């Protein structure tokens, strides 16, 4: 391997500082100029003993997903880390505290589970922290320091990150953490490194642009902010909450308004209310919240009110697995609710896509006067990637609205299907909108011809969305032209698909991958072309039934091979690869 490609996993219990350690690690890596993809897994529990894992993949070349195998696992809590020892590759490292204070039963220590090809590093984080800072709370930072020392990372970069992280706390906190880091770092210097994990130097961009690190949710926030969000309404729900939390910080500083509502229904209701009143307004939720919002989204479609709904999916149905990732809300996002309620659904595949989709969602919502759902999942919401921020704000500012002509026909049946729009406060545009079927003036009408015309309008107007400038609605990767295996994917899973596809290419398999960012309306022409090029199309996704497979297969009337996996964890590259290999073999056999 030419460049660096190391994935660290830090696992501990909530309260161990696992995520914080991972956070410092990935920020430092980003600061140093590496590309970073990171993903934290939180427990559903508030505190106590839930498992936290922070995975950080550090690369010099572009990576598309986390690797299913980590190079290094650092355990801050053996009980939680033990199940993850297996994810460490052969000749990778497992780092753990070799002096826990509680007596453990047999197998209770992570060392009991280290595979023969993995390399153990027992370090007494606790006692080192005790010595360095006077208490054991800094053991996560000790461990981080140990990691840094073990792999020869520059301590100064970590110092800076630590200082940033504790900027709002007393200086003593920063100092203690730095001491803990240094102590761990020194411990590592005295450790003989046995694994083959190697950190090379980061590559720096020719244009000198500095990458920043963002989560999918963070990128969503940035996108919403850059697109000029006026109002946000939300109700806390994992894994979307961080969007609201960050907006709560950012929006008041820029004149926007963030309101925590009493439930998701009111969140979407207020979002649509604000959208009606001319604001760029958004809400964010997860599957259960989206289920509650379904009725309101229908209203948004019917009343043609712009609104943006960020949905970060998690394990379902019902309360499901709040802290696990899943892509099982596609059906609801695309079809959910009553009636023929076509809306725009975007599913970014990476953090940068989250930024663009969130910002463009406002443009689309405004241009096409419809709710726009940006469909993330926990894995994408919470994963960190290094992103080069655009030099200039790429989003169009809010478009002026206004009535045209003496009689304001809010729902005029135009050729495009998009009607003139006015917002409250504008003279000459007074109108009433409704969730009832209505005529061009917005008056309730259940006449057959009218319903046909209006339904057609609501579908017709969204067609150009698939070609919206600046938005990648669908894209093919890998070999062009005819291939044996096509892999079709969406959302967070597409990173794994790409990794698998490139690996398969390396193995000589004729394959290609396509991501579908716009799930509704579906870019049918491009999909048709892709299907025409592929002997077999494989659709890996994180749900039980294969919802994209059903959507695409149903839409195109073409067979697909499903690879639905709903485990709560991200898709495994090796699993995709295995399926690709199997299909390639079948294809080859069939060809003979």
């Amino acid at each position: 391997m030419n460049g660096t490609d190391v994935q660290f996993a830090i696992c501990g219990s909530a309260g161990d500082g696992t995520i914080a350690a991972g956070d410092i690690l990935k920020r430092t890596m980003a600061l140093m100029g590496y590309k970073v993809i990171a993903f934290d897994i939180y427990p559903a529990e508030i505190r106590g003993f839930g498992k936290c894992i922070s995975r950080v993949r550090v690369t010099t070349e572009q990576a598309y997903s986390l690797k299913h195998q980590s190079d290094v696992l650092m355990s801050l809590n053996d009980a939680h880390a033990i199940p993850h020892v297996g994810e460490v590759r052969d000749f990778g490292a497992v780092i753990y505290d070799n002096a826990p204070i509680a007596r453990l039963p047999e197998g209770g220590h992570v060392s009991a589970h280290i595979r023969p090809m993995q390399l153990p590093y027992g370090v007494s984080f606790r006692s080192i922290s005790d010595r360095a800072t006077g208490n054991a709370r800094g053991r996560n930072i000790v461990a981080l320091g140990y990691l840094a020392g073990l792999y020869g990372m520059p301590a100064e970069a970590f110092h800076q990150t630590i200082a940033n992280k504790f900027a709002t706390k007393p200086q003593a906190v920063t100092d203690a953490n730095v001491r803990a880091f240094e102590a761990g770092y020194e411990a590592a210097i005295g450790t003989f490194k046995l694994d083959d994990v190697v950190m090379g130097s980061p590559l720096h961009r020719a244009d000198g642009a500095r990458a920043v690190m963002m989560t999918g949710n963070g990128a969503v926030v940035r996108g919403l902010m850059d697109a000029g969000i006026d109002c946000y309404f939300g109700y806390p729900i994992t894994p979307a909450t961080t969007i609201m939390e960050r907006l709560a910080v950012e929006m008041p500083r820029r004149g926007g308004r963030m309101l925590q509502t009493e439930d998701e229904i009111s969140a979407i209701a207020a979002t649509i209310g604000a959208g009606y009143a001319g604001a760029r307004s958004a809400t964010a939720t997860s599957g259960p919240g989206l289920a509650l919002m379904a009725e309101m989204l229908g209203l948004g479609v019917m009343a043609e009110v712009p609104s943006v709904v960020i949905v970060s999916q998690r394990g379902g149905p019902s309360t499901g697995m709040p802290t696990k990732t899943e892509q099982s809300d596609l059906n609801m996002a695309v079809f959910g609710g009553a009636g023929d309620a076509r809306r725009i659904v975007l599913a970014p595949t990476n953090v940068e896509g989250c930024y663009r989709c969130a910002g463009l969602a406002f443009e689309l919502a405004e241009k096409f006067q419809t709710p726009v759902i940006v469909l993330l999942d926990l894995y994408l919401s919470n994963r960190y990637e290094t992103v080069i921020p655009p030099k200039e704000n790429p989003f169009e500012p809010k478009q002026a609205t206004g009535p045209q002509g003496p009689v304001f026909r809010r729902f005029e049946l135009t050729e495009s299907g998009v009607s003139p729009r006015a917002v409250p406060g504008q003279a000459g545009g007074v109108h009433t909108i409704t969730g009832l079927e209505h005529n061009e003036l917005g008056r309730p009408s259940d006449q057959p011809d009218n319903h046909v015309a209006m339904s057609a309008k609501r579908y017709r107007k969204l067609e150009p969305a698939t070609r919206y400038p600046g938005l990648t609605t669908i894209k093919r990767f890998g070999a062009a032209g005819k291939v044996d295996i096509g892999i079709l994917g969406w959302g967070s899973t597409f990173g794994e698909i790409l990794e698998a596809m490139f690996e398969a290419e390396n193995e000589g398999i004729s394959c290609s991958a396509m991501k579908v960012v716009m799930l509704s309306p579906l870019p049918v022409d491009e999909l048709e072309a892709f299907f025409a090029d592929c002997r077999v199309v494989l659709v890996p996704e994180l749900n039980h039934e294969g919802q994209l497979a059903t959507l695409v297969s149903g839409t195109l009337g073409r067979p697909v091979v499903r690879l639905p996996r709903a485990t709560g964890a991200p898709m495994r590259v090796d699993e995709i690869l295995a399926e690709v290999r199997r299909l390639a073999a079948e294809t080859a056999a069939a060809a003979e």
Partner: protein
Amino acid sequence: MNELLKPVYLEEKLEEIRADGHQDYRSRSLPTWCPGCGYFSMAEGFTLALKKLGRSAEEVVVVSGIGCASRFPFFVNTYGFHTLHGRTLPVATGVKQANDALTVVAVGGDGDAFAIGGGHIPHAARRNVDITYLVFDNGIYGLTKGQTSPTSVLGFRTSTSPYENGDEPLNPLMMLLAYRASWVGQAYAGHPHHLADMIAEAIAHRGFSYLHILSPCVTFDKTTRTYRNLNMQVRDLPSGYDRTDLAAAMGEAMKVDHPALGVFYEESRPTLADVMDETARKAGLSPVPAGGE
């Protein structure tokens, strides 16, 4: 000369009405409520109130849910949003958040407000969103042709309580007072002038104002909440009543057999917008808290 007996000359009256202009606040569409419905009273009172307050049509947004009362936006010539069952207040909150300059009036019936939408009221009230909530309480579901509502009286027979309603009706005024609505009043559809005045006062109030409007359902309730009965039951608030006394307001609200008309309670406290402004001020002074991204 007896002025009361003096005949009304139509052309003069029409001229007067045209000059007054309150009919400009009406939409072109005729209200689709049953003839005689008390909701007409609020529609008319609303237009009179807007005229009285001098609000221009385009700066007013009427938000409603689902139900007979919620058809209201179609019948006024302001911006209107006929939303979903029970979701009036959140949508109205959204509209107000988007533009403080708008006069936002939420409108709904008793089912919309207290059954499906009951969960939203406390929050709009406690946040003191500067909107006006007009609830038209006829104690029945009219649009679905006569089922029991949260304010249906005990013993009321409806299509869903064929053996008489046994559920204690809730007391909206007590609820709203408890929720800390900063303006709580009650009016009656049979007293349109008073109703119009109350709507005007409710809209003029800065903060969350709640006006409970007693109205008969002339189609599905021929026995309980009729004009005849209400005419006999309603009363004025006692003389010397102190509208800043929450305990007194509660006391009056408890007298359900003889509902009082008037302003039960009024207080002045920061609105949601005020809080938002204060938040913005604090945000401007503070370092950026970490977290989130």
